[in-house]
């Protein structure tokens, strides 16, 4: 039944289907589109213009087939258009590809000194427990550095071998304890303070000594403060500073300004008490001295020794930092080599 007219339409359709395979990009797509659909000379356009020559009986069928082919051609062209447009955009992005493995442009961010970091960390832990930070002079009267701490003139700790003297009654403080006395002189209990700062001892510099170092000392004097509170506070502090697994142990010792006195050990952070080189196989590392405030001290600051009790402890900031980060020579803190500083 199909007439010559419709046969021609179909043959254009077949030609279209054949040629579309070889369309490769947006430019050839444009040519392809014009060949079939251009308003003046497109093969399909021309066929449609012929509709009036088609015999009337076939005209309806011709029209239907022609429109069907045209619609199909347009949808094919649209799909191709999209496909090639995407491909072109992708190609443009591909040309912009970077070697992302090259280094980033980093701003050089400076580092706080490790001792500042440790001091701030310690301050923050104690502040969270309600302590106030205090400080005092480094060039200190012997009264505050010694006498008022129950270290009389005859005590060997006052030796010029160990202490830097400025005058008969002036020294470079050998510990931060004078701040405790100065604070107690200023106020009645409760006294709840932490004193970090520089201290000086005439030790030749080696891996574990420097003639200047940093200490922090804690003092709590109030009604009802006991040795058990000292234990609890030390345990809490060490868990916060070294990590929740850390255990704290006290051993009896002797200091002039506390009684009972105790050395404080923490479980070795490197081996978790299994024993290693750092803790000399003992599982424990000595970190500070502590004790119940010797009631004799209250006489110097006019506190009622029957009413108030307290505890005090103090440690080296270098030692705490060194222990946490396995720094094996505390002189590194004062060399200020950037290869050291930039690790923290």
């Amino acid at each position, binding site marked *: 039944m199909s007439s010559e007219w419709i046969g021609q339409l179909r043959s254009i359709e077949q030609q279209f289907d054949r040629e579309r395979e070889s369309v490769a990009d947006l430019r050839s797509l444009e040519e392809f589109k014009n060949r079939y659909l251009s308003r003046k000379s497109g093969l399909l356009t021309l066929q449609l213009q012929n509709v009036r020559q088609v015999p009337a009986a076939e005209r309806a069928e011709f029209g239907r087939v022609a429109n069907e082919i045209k619609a199909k051609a347009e949808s094919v062209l649209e799909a191709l258009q999209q496909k090639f447009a995407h491909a072109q955009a992708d190609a443009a992005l591909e040309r912009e590809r970077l070697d992302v493995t*090259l*280094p980033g*442009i980093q701003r*050089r*961010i*400076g*580092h*706080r*000194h490790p*001792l*500042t970091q440790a001091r701030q960390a310690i*301050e923050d832990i*104690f*502040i*969270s427990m*309600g302590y*106030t*930070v*205090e*400080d005092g002079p*480094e060039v200190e009267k012997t009264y505050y550095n010694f006498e008022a701490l129950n270290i009389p003139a*005859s005590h060997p700790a006052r030796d*010029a071998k160990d202490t*830097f*003297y*400025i005058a008969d009654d002036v020294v*470079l403080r050998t510990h931060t304890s004078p701040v405790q006395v100065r604070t107690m002189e200023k106020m009645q209990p409760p006294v*709840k303070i932490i004193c970090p700062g520089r201290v000086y001892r*005439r030790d*030749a510099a080696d891996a574990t000594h*420097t*003639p200047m170092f940093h200490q922090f000392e804690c003092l*709590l004097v*109030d009604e*009802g403060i*006991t*040795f*058990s*509170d000292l*234990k*609890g*506070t030390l345990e*809490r502090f060490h868990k916060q500073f070294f990590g929740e697994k850390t255990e704290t*142990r*006290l051993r*009896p*010792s*002797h200091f002039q300004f506390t*009684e*009972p006195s*105790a050395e404080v050990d923490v479980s070795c952070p490197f081996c978790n008490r299994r024993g290693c080189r750092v803790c000399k196989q003992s599982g424990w590392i000595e970190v500070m001295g502590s004790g119940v405030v*010797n009631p*004799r001290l209250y006489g110097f600051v006019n506190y009622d020794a029957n009413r108030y*009790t307290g505890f005090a402890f103090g440690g080296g900031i270098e030692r705490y930092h060194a222990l946490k980060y396995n720094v094996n020579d505390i002189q590194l803190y*004062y060399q*200020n*080599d*950037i*290869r050291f*500083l930039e690790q923290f």
Partner: protein
Amino acid sequence: MKISYNWLKEFIDIPVDARTLGQRVTHVGLALESCVEFGDDWVLDLDVTTNRPDCLSHLGIAREVGAIYGTVLRRPQFKVTEVSQRAADVASITIDDADLCGRYCGRYIARVKIGPSPEWLSKRLESLGVRSINNVADITNYVMMELGHPMHAFDADKLGGRQIIVRRAEVDERLTTLDGVERRLDPSILVIADAKKPVALAGIMGGGETEIVPSTTNVLLESAWFNPLSIRKTARTLGMTTEASYRFERGTDIEMASFACDRAAAMIQELAGGQLLKGTIDIFPRKPERARITLRRERIERVLGVPVDDAIVSRIFERLELQPAQTAQGWTVEVPAFRVDLAGEQDLIEEIARHHGLDKFPSTMPPSRGFGSLLPGERRVRQVRDTLSAAGYNEICTYSFSNEQMERRFYADIEPVRLRNPMTEEATILRTSLIPGMLTTLQWNLNRGARNLQMYELSKVYWDGGERRTLILGACGNLRPASVHEPPREFDFFALKGDVEDLLQRFDIPVRLTTDNIPNYYHPGRFARVGHLAMFGELHPSYAEPFKFRQRVYLAEIDIELLLRSSTSHQLEQIPRYPGVRRDFSLLFERGTQYATVHRTIGEAGIPEVVRVEPFDRMESGPFPDTKYSLSISVVYQSAERTLTDVEVEGFDKKIIQRLEERLGAQLRK
């Protein structure tokens, strides 16, 4: 203190091995330093705290061990056999200064035979690190290690007049001690003298002349008690520390003197033969009363946190030989002469804590009162540190000590704090500025291959009469090094200036620069200051020279205390609702016209709509005369009320250009 495990067992039963014992005594305050095998014995090295001289002996340690394990102390047993001749008839002892010598016991042994010690004795001493000399000398050392009481043996025939006089030395008296050193004496020093001259430094070291030698036949044994302060002072003055002085200066047992004397005499008889003359010459001017201390029961709980059973407390006191008597309120104890550390109630509480065990007390948190806070200003100091970190500065921490010559180069007018006893000639004063520390640190790092450095130190400086914190920045090399992405950007004056400006602006401080009062360590053409608050610039080349810097070094000194004080709080400025208009001008100025003048002149045009003026290009040469330079400036106009019209903007432009032309002779470039 070195302790022989076998020797210790002579005085006390020990249910554990040496190593376990060491760990156990650590928990009563005798920290174990080491425990090493020595033949069939073990030697424990225990750290005895300065308040416990009674533990500087095997007997003293045995007493602590007995208190731990509940075993009974056995004192050394010996027999003294005397001849009828009285020691007091042969020799005499006098104490001239009873304050410095509280007791002096002497025993006389005639016709001894000096020779080597038997092997068991020399070995025992050797295990404790004591060199064997001869039988008599070894016995005195042995008794000291056993009972803690230092002894001395004189060759009695060399004592002039067979006399012992304990007295202060006379001015310029001399004594050659056992170590062969001639000592110059003075009246602060207590000596043992014979009829004519000093023969020993009391409590420290004997003299060479009266030393026990192989030919010695008659021995005078000394067992005395000397004043701890006097011994300590003499030992320090002469720079000597001996086993004897170590014990005397901590405090020995005055009651032990005669027992120790008998013990040594008996051993000499046994090991060196001889005849022990009758009686101890015991000069004991004032026998001190034993102190009594009362302990209130309730104080135990108040100090330690929990009560301790009465039975436990009594048992601890008994085992420590404190002879406790229980009362309704608590206990009264009698302090034995060997416990020089026990003086008050708190001391007894310590004994309870120690022997009951510190681990027996629970861990509690103190009742919470008050609130915590940082030091005043510390929050802002932390902001300063954060700002400097963000700007790329590493913080350094240097010693407070410094070299006076070096400090004076920078701050010549400050009277420094001088150390009386510095450790080295390089560190005799406290620093007066942070500059030497900074330059030394830059040098240290440059010498180790670093090139691009930005550092700061925020710490104290000191002068005679005070100390204060201050801040220094130091930098050299590149701000950003060359990379695959961009060329290097050198750290220069303007990088430093920007960092100082950032810091001041963080605290809302307006930066008003001047270039007056230039310290001579700054480059005269590359320096600026903000009042007393900040000084910064390039280090003067002649000051850089001693440090051998091969690149320009920049310093900024900032008075941190002033910075913290000048900080003000500020309030929100409304964000403009209408757009601004930017206009660019290129102008020619006479050389020497400062940018600050140009900026100020634009301000003087009196246009409130000018919100920003910025230079963006500067050319020193071009199509214009050599006497001029070209500066390009952008100006932003903005109104808070409306969008500006073209006509208004052009009017502003004209006004500004006219002002610059009139005041500064500027020419607008076409």
